[in-house]
């Protein structure tokens, strides 16, 4: 898996936008030996994502899926106008803690990524980084019509139209904007999917890695991060 070549951007595009600090260049060391420095390759791991098979014993996997479904830790990353709908979820009126939903500040500890509305290209770059840093059973809940077909920003030069071309999506919550009740319904739908064992999109992402990367690199022109952000 790791021997496969990474998807490298066209050379002229890469040289055009990469910060000269990160550009590939030849450096003369203090001892006079010349060597090539490529910070985007040298400082980062270029390992590709792995596919983690579910537990082979169905009973154990069913139990673990139940635990995953009942303990959804949400990454605190609001991308668009929908992030204003996430805050009331934790207030007494809606109280998502009842369903095991808890906000977490770091992608390493979270399982659910709520894409809350439109995504500009600049945000998509950060979303891809955060999504790839989350540990393996990870789920994406796409909020609002902007993530489905672009919504009211369908003709904007700067916002994406279809989220599922860039990261895999488990459940959509339609609306512009969906109310917090709709978001709770989305959480419950996600729970059903996880309990049925149908939410293995992290593995799908690893399987179709090349396709996702090609789509991402098509619009993120100044690609100055590793292909997979460990």
């Amino acid at each position, binding site marked *: 898996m790791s021997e496969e070549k990474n998807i490298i951007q066209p050379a002229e595009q890469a040289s055009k936008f990469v910060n000269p600090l990160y550009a590939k260049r030849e450096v003369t060391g203090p001892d006079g030996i010349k060597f090539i420095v490529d910070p985007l390759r040298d400082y980062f791991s270029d390992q590709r994502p792995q596919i983690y098979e579910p537990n082979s014993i169905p009973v154990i996997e069913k139990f673990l899926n139940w635990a995953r479904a*009942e303990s959804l830790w949400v990454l605190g990353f609001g991308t668009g106008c929908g992030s204003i709908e996430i805050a009331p979820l934790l207030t*007494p009126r809606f109280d998502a803690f*009842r369903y095991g939903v808890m906000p977490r*500040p770091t992608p*390493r500890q979270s399982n659910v990524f709520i894409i809350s509305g439109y995504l500009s290209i600049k945000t998509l770059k950060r979303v891809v980084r955060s999504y790839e840093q989350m540990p393996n*059973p990870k789920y994406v809940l796409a909020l609002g019509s902007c993530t489905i077909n672009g919504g009211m920003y369908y003709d904007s030069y700067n916002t994406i139209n279809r989220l599922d071309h860039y990261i895999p999506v488990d459940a959509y919550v339609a609306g512009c904007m969906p109310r917090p009740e709709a978001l709770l319904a989305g959480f419950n739908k996600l729970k059903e999917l996880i309990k049925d064992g149908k939410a293995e999109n992290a593995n799908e992402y690893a399987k179709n890695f090349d396709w996702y990367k090609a789509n991402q690199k098509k619009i993120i022109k100044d690609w100055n991060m590793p292909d997979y952000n460990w």
Partner: protein
Amino acid sequence: MDFDFEKIGFTLLGLFIVLNWGLLMGAAMRKLGARVGRRYGIPWFQPWINLFKNYAIRSTLSHGIMFYLGPVFRLSGGIGLFLFMPMIIGSQLWLNYSFQGDLVLIMYFQFFGMLGMALGAGESGHPYSAIGISRGLSQFTTIELPLTLAIISIAVQYNTLSIIDIVQAQQGGFMNWTVFTNPVATVAAMLSLLGVLSHSPFNLVNAPNENPIGPPTEYHGSFLGVLQTNRAILHVVEAALFMNLFFGGATNWFEFFMKTFLIYFWSVFVGVVFPRYRIEQSVSWFLKVPLVLGVLAVILYM
């Protein structure tokens, strides 16, 4: 050296009881916080689910050897505290491995986990981890000062460093408890308990649910599961330490549960009422009233 399998078995059973009791108290704490905020709150079994889920995370990521050892040190700090802490006085089976002078060892183990965690979280390389460590160590140092002074006062009062002896000296009616015989040391220690259990006024180090999460920023999956396990154990054992030192110990499990629950909820009740201190505020707070009370407690019994 011959192994006393019965003793090992009862110690492991005690650890199991303490772990589950700690998880239940954690759930009760969050439930209480929710009810104060007029929410319904989590289900009471949520900590167990979180624990199972975290141990079932498939992909883990290493930042080096110390990154692995950090949670291990933290857990061994918690279990070390448990091993040398007598749980139930009056039964040989639940005394664990306490011995003469275990009070000194327990004071050491309180800092052991913090230091191990500092090394591990430092290796993760995340800036929030480094900030959390410096905050945690500076706050814990000031927490330790009044606590240590109070314990010195008790050691002078009972003329022993053995927890079992201290507990046995308090038997025979609640008027013999340290809380009545040495109230100044008790107040100093109970104020520092607020910091030891790191609930609301003094929880900036972990700052749950906020952006700088503190030392465990990079810990995920089973690493985080180990830290959660340790947290549950540590909270019960700290409460048990204060129960043994100040509130006459426990002679059966029911008494143990009642007393640890009330001691633990002293910090929770304070936590739901008072908002969070910044780190320099909490450091200077511990260096004022609790420290003065601690010094006073030592002077009174010198």
